[in-house]
């Protein structure tokens, strides 16, 4: 039998809970500092409004040449970026939503490029234009979606388990979301709708992981009634450890392949999922159960 975690493994997670809390605290703090320094998440055009044009040149060209062409076409403030994740010769051109006339912008960009480069040497592959009003709309919708999704999951947990478990789950998912947003901020990744979808998936995945552990706790509680709560938690986390790691690894494996081969459009999306699933797996082992323990020590449940 091939085993990652040998049966009877007894890692004392609960005793080391403060190490976990400290580590998570530091990671979250770094993320929050990065967010403050950057002045909040960097919103992509989905939420901030603006225009994004993906252009493919048959031969790679200098970014400065593209920028120059745009400037000659009176498109000041256009940012040009190589888009290597999608392939060679691919570039992203972005424009802020400040101009009221977004409608003709993609045409203007095309015309400006055609003046400098041969018309056959490039191809506009993608145009995304979001008006400022739509962006604002999406932002509030996104916040609602996140709040509703989290609330529904918590209601489900409180209903299936105990309230103290819900507390642990809340702490764990807040941890995962804060850490992931922090990492996105550190890596200068734009916050788009796709990223939001990734975050909600992470929340679902992390709770999924946490529930598997909680399920075991529920099963072990009556069996180990005489043992201290802390020991019972330790046994449980150890028992579920191989499943947690195995599932996490197989999911990560697929995501890593997707990250390297799935193309530029979903590059940031898969990266977010990878970060979130690493921390989600970690938090369901360390943070979720440890929080239940701290809560139990502070507010012991009378009848157990």
């Amino acid at each position: 039998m091939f085993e990652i975690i040998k049966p009877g493994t007894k890692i004392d997670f609960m005793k080391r809970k403060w190490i976990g809390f400290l580590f998570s605290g530091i990671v979250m703090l770094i993320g929050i500092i990065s967010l403050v320094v950057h002045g909040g998440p960097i919103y992509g055009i989905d939420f901030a409004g603006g225009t994004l044009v993906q252009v493919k040149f048959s031969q790679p060209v200098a970014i400065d040449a593209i920028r120059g062409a745009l400037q000659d076409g009176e498109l000041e403030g256009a940012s040009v970026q190589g888009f290597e994740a999608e392939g060679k010769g691919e570039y992203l051109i972005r424009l802020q939503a400040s101009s009221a006339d977004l409608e003709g912008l993609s045409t203007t960009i095309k015309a400006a490029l055609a003046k400098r480069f041969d018309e056959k040497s490039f191809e506009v592959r993608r145009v995304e234009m979001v008006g400022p009003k739509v962006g604002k709309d999406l932002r509030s919708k996104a916040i609602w979606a996140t709040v509703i999704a989290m609330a529904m999951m918590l209601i489900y947990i409180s209903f299936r388990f105990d309230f103290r478990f819900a507390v642990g789950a809340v702490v764990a998912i807040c941890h995962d979301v804060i850490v992931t947003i922090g990492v996105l901020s550190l890596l200068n990744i734009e916050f788009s709708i796709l990223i939001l979808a990734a975050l909600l998936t992470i929340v679902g995945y992390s709770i999924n992981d946490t529930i598997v552990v909680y399920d075991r706790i529920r099963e072990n509680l009556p069996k180990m009634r005489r043992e201290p709560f802390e020991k019972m938690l330790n046994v449980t986390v150890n028992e579920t450890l191989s499943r947690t790691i195995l599932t996490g690894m197989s999911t990560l494996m697929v995501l890593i392949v997707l990250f390297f081969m799935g193309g530029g459009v979903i590059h940031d999306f898969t990266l977010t999922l990878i970060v979130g699933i690493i921390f989600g797996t970690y938090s369901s082992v360390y943070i979720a159960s440890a929080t239940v323990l701290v809560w139990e020590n502070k507010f012991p449940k009378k009848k157990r």
Partner: protein
Amino acid sequence: MTRSLQWRFLLILAVLIGAAIFLYPTFVKELPSWWPKFFPQDKIHLGLDLQGGMHLTFEVEADKAVESSVEGIKNDLGNNLKKENIFYTYLDRVQGNKIEVVLLNPDVKARFDSYLKEQYPSWKEATSQREGDRVKVLLEMDSRQIAEIKKSAIDQALETIRNRVDQFGVAEPDISRQGENMILIQLPGIKDPERAKELIGKTAILEFKLVDEEYDPSRALAGNIPFGDVILYQRVEDPKTGAVHKVPYVIKDKTLMTGDALKDARVKLDQNNRPFVGLSLHPAGARLFEQVTTENTGKRLAIILDNNIYSAPVIRQPISGGEAIIEGRFSMEEARDLAIVLRAGSLPAPIKILEERTVGPSLGQDSINKGIKATIIGGLLVIIAMILYYRMAGFVANIALILNIFLLLAIMAMLPAVLPTTVALTLPGIAGIALTLGMAVDANVLIYERIREEMRLGKPPGAALAAGYSRAFLTIMDSNVTTVIAALVLLQFGTGPIKGFAITLTIGIAVSMFTAIVVTRFIFDVVLNNFRIKRWSI
């Protein structure tokens, strides 16, 4: 086989055959001719990000429709008040959709009040104040009436856009209303997005007005615009350099005829093979046109679309017969598009683009290729890992895994026929499939880890199997519900690509529960029944 095994075998077989039938149309080029008689022929719908196409959100500026309606009522009211000898010194539309009228004296005001109540029941006095002898009254429209105008403006805009898109010729366009005043348009596989945008977004208000030839445009441009005139421009393109310049005209603001008079508009060619748009008019329109051309013979008549002058020919003689033409150095495409918008009619209010997402066909194909390649490689890695870790049982899990993708795709092909909303496979959707692969393993892992534990406790294979499945079942349920909750919320909220992700994730979870609980259990039970095994290879 025992009875229970037989039943399960039949269930699995039925599911597999059903799935194969639904998937068949997606993977073959041409269906046999008898196929549609018995079986569905829907393919898996591809999202715009995979097949290429344009997604547009327009806002109908319904307030403008209200304003132009109020403008008409104001003119009408002015004429009627004159007829009724209800004297006023001032009448105009103010604050967008209100009317201000200054009446001669309180007596007139009393007559005005009763007249208004009788003839304009949807109008009410908002404020009134005495200014010496005169009475200034502010009128406002009933809010229900305003809502009604807005609603009908949006309905009409939707209808007009449908007409235009139909005539433009796009396969399977999707045009629907969103929220209060937005229109969502999806045009899959469109080749010339800019042209389509132009065509859809045109308000297309056609007007015929006279050119005021007594005035020199340059004098008018200096600020000397005669009363009742406006300056409008004609765009002229130099055929050699392609440079565009605008020629100003002084135009009498009175509209002689509008696009309402049109019956049809067609592209025609002149003797030099240059395209122009030929208009034919309704009988009533034809009479009006004849009258206009008779009264104004020798003058120049400007043909104006959305405040741009297309041409301003001299009326040589009265035109009867109800035919007119618009010339203007068109390309064939421009002439065709102009004919389409004229036929489909004008929009009741201007529309504004709020959101545009266009994906070129080459990027879509790239995305499909990359997504499929990544999913296959990711899947192979998982399959290898499962065999390494669980050996024979891993092999069983892999059967479940492959079935998973098969069933997931079958449901994707089936759903568009069942659900009213568009269910399409998108690039994030492919990522969702890949992600479900990873997560589908979870159900098997939970079960197998349980079986291992039960075996360690010394249970025989049959008991270990039963205990493993029954204990893991609740955990699998509980843990999947939360992911489904996240996916369902995304489904409500997201745009196209995200919906695709939420859909594949949800289906993937449902399918993985079926394969992990029913299919693998069936295989283990068959093995248990037919071989005397002492230990599971797990």
